[in-house]
Each structure stands twice: as structure tokens, then as C-alpha cells.
């Protein structure tokens, strides 16, 4: 069987910056307070939702940023403990049990804030676990990040952030499968990767 490579596709033309995907990830993965694996960025002015330019010649777009699950990840090379590793199907994983909390992965990663570090005991607003029970609980002193919702995809479900998008701007699948939605989308549309010149070959594509 051909090797899988899971990728995510985000249509920047359609993304409206609504943060539904960010909240879906936060709630489904029971992320601690202040931890976000999926962030929504305003590509415009300095502050959220503000545009670039001078009235009325303005521009504004949105994009989401989480772990890019690079094909050649800088973090996997940097991790001294083997806590960060890449699965056969392309998902870059973070093993909390092995993580030392040295944060070299954060330093090595070309992307901003896609990894979160639990400096203290993770805190939550509610005193019971929310989200998918199968998600591994977070630990103090370790790094966490988007893992393409491996527990869900291994059970045939889509990651938390994909189907919920109100603008229908998010897609996930195996790019090695010519029948997959992501393959067809990338074939038919102009697309780009973030910081492609860093050479890590990210697995998140943006339709532009």
C-alpha cells in the first residue's frame, strides 16, 4: 500500500477569521487555559481584525497557524529526547511522557507560537475533562502542539478543526491518494506553503 501523507489545506480566499476552528481544537482537545494549538492570524494591520493600508485603500486576509507537520521537521532533528517524532503517515507527534521541557523544538521551529509550553500545572476553567476523552492529558513542564487529532484520524474521523469551518475553507486528507479531496484541490488551485524557503516542506497548504 502506498505510503500516506496527511496534509491540511486552508483556503485563504474563503477564511473569514471567525476562530471556529481555534475553538473546536481548544474544546475537543481539552487545552489548558491560555494554550491554543490553532491560532487565527490577521494578515492586515497590527491589531486583530484591522486592515493594512490607508482608508479607503485597504487589504485584509485571515489565515490559521498551527503545527505545519513538516516533511523534514526541524523540531524532530533538534529534540534531544526523541519526544518529537514523525509518524509514517506524516503526522509530527509530541510524546508528553518523553518530553523534558527543554523547548529546543520551539527554538528550532521556523513558525511562531505553534507549540505551547506548560510551564506550570495545566489549568482549566472547569474541574472535569472536556473534549475527546481519548486525548492524552497535558503535563506540566512539557510542550504540546497540534497533532492533526491523531486519535480521531486513527478512528476514521476528521480532525476537530476541519468540518466545523463555517466558510468551508478547511480540508484534510492523504495527498498521496489521487481520489482525495486535498489532492484534487491542490491540483486545481493555486496554492502556497508558509516559509517554504526554510526548507522544511510543511504539510499545510494555503489556497491563494
Amino acid at each position, binding site marked *: 500500500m502506498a505510503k500516506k501523507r496527511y496534509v491540511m489545506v486552508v483556503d485563504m480566499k474563503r477564511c473569514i477569521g471567525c476562530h471556529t476552528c481555534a475553538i473546536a481544537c481548544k474544546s475537543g482537545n481539552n487545552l489548558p487555559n491560555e494554550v491554543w494549538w490553532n491560532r487565527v492570524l490577521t494578515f492586515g494591520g497590527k491589531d486583530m481584525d484591522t486592515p493594512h493600508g490607508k482608508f479607503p485603500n485597504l487589504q485584509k486576509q485571515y489565515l490559521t497557524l498551527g503545527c505545519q507537520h513538516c516533511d523534514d521537521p526541524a523540531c524532530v532533528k533538534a*529534540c534531544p529526547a526523541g519526544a518529537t517524532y514523525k509518524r509514517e503517515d506524516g503526522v509530527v507527534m509530541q510524546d508528553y511522557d518523553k518530553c*523534558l*521541557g527543554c523547548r529546543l523544538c520551539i*527554538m528550532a521551529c521556523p513558525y511562531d507560537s505553534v507549540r505551547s509550553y506548560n510551564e506550570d500545572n495545566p489549568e482549566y476553567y472547569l474541574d472535569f475533562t472536556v473534549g475527546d476523552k481519548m486525548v492524552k492529558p497535558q503535563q506540566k513542564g512539557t510542550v504540546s502542539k497540534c497533532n492533526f487529532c491523531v486519535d480521531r484520524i486513527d478512528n476514521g474521523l476528521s480532525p476537530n478543526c476541519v468540518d466545523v469551518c463555517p466558510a468551508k475553507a478547511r480540508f484534510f486528507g492523504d495527498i498521496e491518494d489521487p481520489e482525495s479531496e486535498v489532492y484534487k484541490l491542490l491540483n486545481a488551485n493555486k496554492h502556497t506553503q508558509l516559509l517554504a524557503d526554510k526548507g522544511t516542506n510543511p504539510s499545510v497548504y494555503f489556497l491563494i
Partner: protein
Amino acid sequence: MIRKEMSLIINSILVPLAAGLFIFLSVFRALLSDPVDVHSIRYFTGAGMALAGPVVLLGIIISLFHLGNPFRAYRSVKKIDTSWLSREVFFTGSFFGLWLLYFIMELKGIENFYMICLTVLAGLLSVVSMANIYHSTGKPGWSGFNTYFGFLGSIIILGSVASSVIAVYGGSESGEVRVLLMFSVSSAVFVLAVRFIQQVVLFKKLKPDEEWSIDSLVSGSSLNKETISRYKTYISSGWILSSLGIVCAIFFLASSGVMHFVVLAVSFAFVVAGEFLERCGFYILGPE
């Protein structure tokens, strides 16, 4: 960033200091041949080389505080094949381990020339690995040659002055010693001169990111005006203090015993402070 990484910063001063002490003093021992002062030479170089162990151990312990899970620290050597941090931990550990063996052999009076060589090598490789951790990230201000002159330079700057302190405090007065000390402190001048040139070039190169580009929006290497100016302040003040310390030390060494030992101690304090500030500046360029 600085406060969070303080234990790393301190570690990055202590390890080059330990390596520098050991390297310089073992070289001195090899070169110095005054038969009259043999006992004293052996004494002061031995004392200094003995200090290297506790200093690097202190550095290792302090660096554990940087970890979220210090009790898992043993796992940090698992990825020597790809990780510069694994390599650094390995070589730093080796440096300490080899130093221990040297020290035992020294105490027992066993010939330990090859052990000393291995220890020196481990110390150098440890600091080279440390530099490569940052160099390999490709971040602006980290991915250039200045990184090597920063970390490896500390070996020379700290090591030379520390060795002088040990020698003088140890009462070694021979002219040969003075010449060696002067020579080693002067090599620090060379390092500082190269650093100066490198920093001037780097200061010009470091520009705040384009205000409006997706790259700067998503990049972990995002630099804004404030960060760059803080970086420049730290690096400049660090360089000035280290230079002051080196100049002070040269004056002391050139004065042939006229100046009080305190001057040399003060110059050591200056270089420590200077290297510390230089390192703080370096870390400011890292992710928040």
C-alpha cells in the same frame, strides 16, 4: 525571554569558563618548564584545572532548572544522531566525566597527559555543540559566524582572565608565567576585535521585519524594532564591559606586580558581566 532562559544563560557562561580554565591551564602546564617553580606551577595549574570540574557541574545542575521535567534529563542524550542538544549534553557530561578521571589520576599521581587531551577535546566539542544548537535554527542573529565567536570566544575571554586570577592568586611570579598570561589575555583581544567587526556587520544586517508580509506574520524569527534595539544595547554594553575587563587585566599583567590583586579580580568580574550581557543579548533574538 531572558528571565525564562536565565538558567541557560548562566550555564552558557559556566561551561565555557570551566572549559577555558581547563584548556588554558593544561596548556600552561605543558609549556611552562621553569625547574625552580615546578612545584608552584603544578600547584596553580592543578588548582585551576581542579576548579573546572565543580564549575561545569554547577553549570549542569543550573541548566537542569531550565527543563520542565528535570528528572527526565537522562533522556537528553537519546538523539545524538540529529540533535545538537543531545551532543552538547553528551560532550558536557563527557567533559565532566573525563575531568573526574583526570582528577583522580592527578591525586594518585598517575601520568594523565592523554586524559587531559581528551578532556580538552570534550570541553571544546561541548561548547561547539552549544553554539550549533542556535546556529542550526537558522534564525537571524543566530545563524551567522558571530554565534561561534560568541560561545567559543567566551572560552578564551573567560578562560584567559580566570587563569590569570588563579595564577596570580596562587603566587606564581615567574616571568615565564607572566608572558603566558599576557599572551593568553591578548588572544582575548583578538576575539573581541573580531566580535566587534562581526557585530557591526550584523547590526547593519538586522532589520525589523517588513511590516506587512505573511512571512513575518508567521515566522518564529520575527524581529521588531524594540527587540533589535534591546539586542544592540545588550551586545554593545557586554562588549564594552568585556573589553574593559581585558584591558584591565592587560594593565595588571603589564605592571609587573605594582597593582593590587584586586584589580585583576575586578577585571574578572568585568568579563563575567560582559559575557553575561553578551549572552543575554544573544538570547533576546530567540522566540518569546
